[in-house]
């Protein structure tokens, strides 16, 4: 016993708080820094996502400049500069050099980032692999100077450590520029930076991206519309989506005096009547003080919520791309003949509203013997990794494409010259992991994705069948035409015609054929948005 106590004391000396920064230092794969290639992509992705979120929120048409410089020996310098609203001086260190600091975690609204972990994790990764600080320049208005910071993260305490701070001259009226040095590796291909930016351009047709690759090639993904996405509204959580831990925290944090007012104030879709009914179903008094609710009572409250019928959450908190804009995005980036896109009506999983959008680009220069190219998006962000684990992939695989005119073997993506894009917009996208690469398999989500795909599929099949019909007709015509000279030759022999009359016979037979079968239908590929020069940029040539 004594020994054990001694041991325990000994252990106790080693036991101490683990800072979140230290934790991620050791578990970098959780955030998408598993390997050098992915680390480089994740860094750019976090910076660009932040820039776009900031611009959208401020109502500014984004123009983002991305530059990746190869510093040799697996080192890269990533520079991302936007024309966003800028960041207030006092916030800069916390945003970039404190993990889990941000504005997005505590509210429910559709945004690219969710947890406020991304950019600071990239900073931490850069710091760990190169020992260099992150450099930030930010300016909030033309009338104020720009602030320049060099920051590192104090990993033990999860606090920013300021290396340098000064005001500088910056011509931009407002915006932010981040510069991170890190270890990475650059490769072209499906999971490359090039692809990520190109796909970003597809689902964000209001964005202009200027990208300089590590090979010093410059790509411009030009804006296709000046329409800003509708700014999504912030909503309170819907009771069906709340879990016990979250409920307890909310009960603790609330300023409400009674359980009833807690329910009506902190949740969406709960009025006084519904709140009373929940309390009744939970066998709790509406007048109970929220702070006095015990864990057991909270569990009862959960039961009560489950038993009560509550209308679905409001959906004005969602900002879909829109079928038209998605189609435009596809048109400008993919060389195809046929485009279609749909936006589904909002739906709900576990109390979280979401909208599914899907688009298809068919034909053109796309390879007809390979599997369909699948583009997955969540809140306008391309998902490049873990395709097979994603609910979108599952939905595409379990949709029957044969009836829409594509080949497909069981349990795989369809085969054909086609790109399929699927976008989920939600206040809370259910990713399978913190690195936000695959969407969890909620039946409600899969059902909606499949409905969207079927809608696109039906339009696609109309096009494919029309194309086949025209092909079959032109084949038939040329078959018939091969026999016209024989008819003329036979008539020449039968009626002792002159060569001239034989030729006239052939000519007239061709005219009769044309007249009789009608003019051959034509497929018009009308795509003014597609600019080959621009669109082919960022295409992967491995």
């Amino acid at each position, binding site marked *: 016993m004594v020994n054990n106590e001694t041991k325990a004391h000994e252990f106790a000396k080693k036991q101490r708080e683990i800072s979140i920064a230290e934790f991620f230092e050791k578990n970098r794969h959780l955030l998408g820094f598993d390997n050098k290639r992915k680390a480089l992509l994740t860094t750019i992705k976090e910076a660009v996502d932040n820039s776009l979120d900031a611009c959208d929120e401020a109502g500014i048409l984004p123009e983002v400049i991305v530059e990746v410089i190869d510093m040799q020996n697996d080192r890269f310098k990533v520079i991302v500069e936007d024309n966003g609203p800028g960041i207030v001086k006092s916030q800069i260190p916390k945003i970039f050099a404190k993990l889990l600091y941000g504005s997005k975690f505590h509210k429910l609204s559709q945004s690219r980032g969710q947890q406020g972990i991304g950019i600071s994790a990239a900073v931490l990764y850069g710091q760990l692999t190169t020992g260099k600080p992150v450099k930030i320049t930010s300016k909030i208005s033309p009338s104020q100077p720009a602030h320049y910071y060099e920051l590192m993260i104090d990993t033990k305490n999860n606090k920013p450590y300021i290396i340098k701070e000064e005001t500088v001259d910056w011509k931009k009226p407002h915006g932010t520029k981040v510069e991170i040095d890190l270890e990475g590796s650059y490769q072209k291909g499906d999971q490359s930076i090039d692809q990520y930016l190109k796909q970003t351009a597809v689902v964000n047709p209001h964005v202009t991206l200027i990208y300089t690759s590590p090979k010093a090639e410059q790509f411009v993904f030009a804006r296709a519309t000046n329409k800003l996405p509708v700014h999504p509204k912030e909503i309170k959580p819907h009771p069906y989506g709340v879990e016990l831990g979250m409920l307890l925290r909310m009960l603790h944090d609330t300023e409400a005096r009674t359980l009833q007012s807690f329910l009506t104030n902190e949740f969406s879709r709960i009025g006084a009547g519904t709140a009373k009914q929940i309390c009744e179903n939970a066998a709790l008094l509406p007048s109970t003080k929220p702070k006095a609710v015990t864990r057991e009572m909270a569990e009862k409250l959960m039961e009560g919520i489950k038993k009560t019928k509550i209308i679905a959450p409001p959906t004005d908190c969602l900002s879909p791309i829109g079928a038209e804009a998605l189609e435009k995005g596809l048109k400008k980036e993919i060389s195809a003949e046929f485009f279609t896109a749909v936006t589904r009506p909002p739906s709900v999983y576990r109390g979280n509203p979401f909208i599914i959008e899907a688009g298809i680009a068919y034909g053109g220069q796309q390879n007809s013997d390979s599997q369909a190219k699948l583009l997955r998006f969540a809140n306008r962000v391309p998902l490049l990794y873990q395709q097979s684990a994603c609910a979108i992939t599952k939905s595409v695989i379990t949709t029957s494409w044969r009836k829409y005119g594509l080949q497909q073997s069981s349990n795989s993506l369809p085969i054909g010259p086609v790109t399929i894009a699927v976008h989920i917009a939600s206040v809370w996208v259910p990713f399978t992991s913190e690195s936000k690469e695959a969407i969890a398999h909620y039946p409600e989500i899969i059902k909606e994705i499949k409905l969207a795909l079927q809608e696109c599929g039906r339009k696609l099949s109309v096009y494919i069948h029309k194309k086949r019909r025209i092909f079959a007709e032109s084949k*038939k015509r040329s*078959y*018939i035409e*091969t*026999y*016209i000279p*024989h*008819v003329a*030759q*036979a*008539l020449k*022999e*039968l*009626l002792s*015609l002159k060569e001239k009359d034989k030729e006239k*016979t052939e000519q*007239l*037979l061709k*005219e*009769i*054929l044309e*007249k*009789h079968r009608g003019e051959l239908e034509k497929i018009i590929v009308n795509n003014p948005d597609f600019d080959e020069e621009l669109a082919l940029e960022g295409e992967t040539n491995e």
Partner: protein
Amino acid sequence: MNKALTKIKDIANNIYQKIMKKKQPQLKSPLRSLSNVKYDPKDGFFELLGKEKVRTLTASSVKTFAQTLRMMALSKELIEKDDIATKREAYYVSKNWAEARFKEQVDSDSIMDDIEAMLMVNREQLGFIPEEKGGEVAGKLIVIDKDPETGKKIRIDCTKFGSGAYSIPISVEHLKFETNAKFILAIETAGMFQRLVKHKFWKKANCILISMGGVPTRACRRFIRRLSEDKKIPVYAFTDGDPYGYFNIYRTLKVGSGNAAHINQYFCVPNARFIGITPQDIIEYKLPTHPLKEVDIKRAKDALKNDPFVQHYKEWQKAIKQLVQMKVRAEQQALAKWGLNYVIEKYLPQKLKDTKKWLP
């Protein structure tokens, strides 16, 4: 001008004029199948109904449209040069026609039959002749033919071929006959014919024996028809007891076929009667049998369902139903079970006497 040639040129001209007027040209010919014939015992043969097939500039018919015209052009050339081509030769001529050539001879034969049907003439009039022999004859008949070189009459005595026989030529229109025979016996197999010739059955029964060698050729049918009509003598058919013997051989001999209905008028033998092996014979003579094959059953059912000849005669319906029920067939040579000459000594004399056992 030759009648066939006039018709060919008329049709060609008609098509040419249509083309000049920018109208869709087309060729119509009677549908050659059992579904397009009717049987009227007064006329005695299968006659065409009005169904037609149309060939024009469509994907499904343009090839045969062109082929038909080219075949007509070949025919025109043959007639003008007073030449002939066998069906096989015509098939080989088409090999010069590039895309319009025939893949198999059955295809060119079929087009040839279409042209015949369209013009309502005989293929010999178009300059085309078959390769097949016409059949063999032995017995009390003198055929009067001409020497192909001198044009001098030749008398051919069909009793003087010993163990051999006279061979029916491809064209029989010019033949004349002398005979005092009481009937013509048309026999399905060469084997049975040989036996009857060997034992001079024709002498004993005062008849003419003709070997059809399976389904009778046009020349064979025309020979029997002319002979029986000229000399007013009846025709009896002696075949195996199976659906092939009944319908493909006997029915074709008597009323013609659906496939060549356009020429049945000249190539049928309406007064033929059936004295071959009936289902009742199989029972009464206790003949050795073989089980009916699937193709036999199908043929029998087809006949009941689609053959206007069978549909007209209850006797035939009864017989074929009986056979299907018995599930067996018997060859004419099965009579040898009772001795090699049983057919000569018993079967044929009995059968010829008892008209009630015949089938119409």
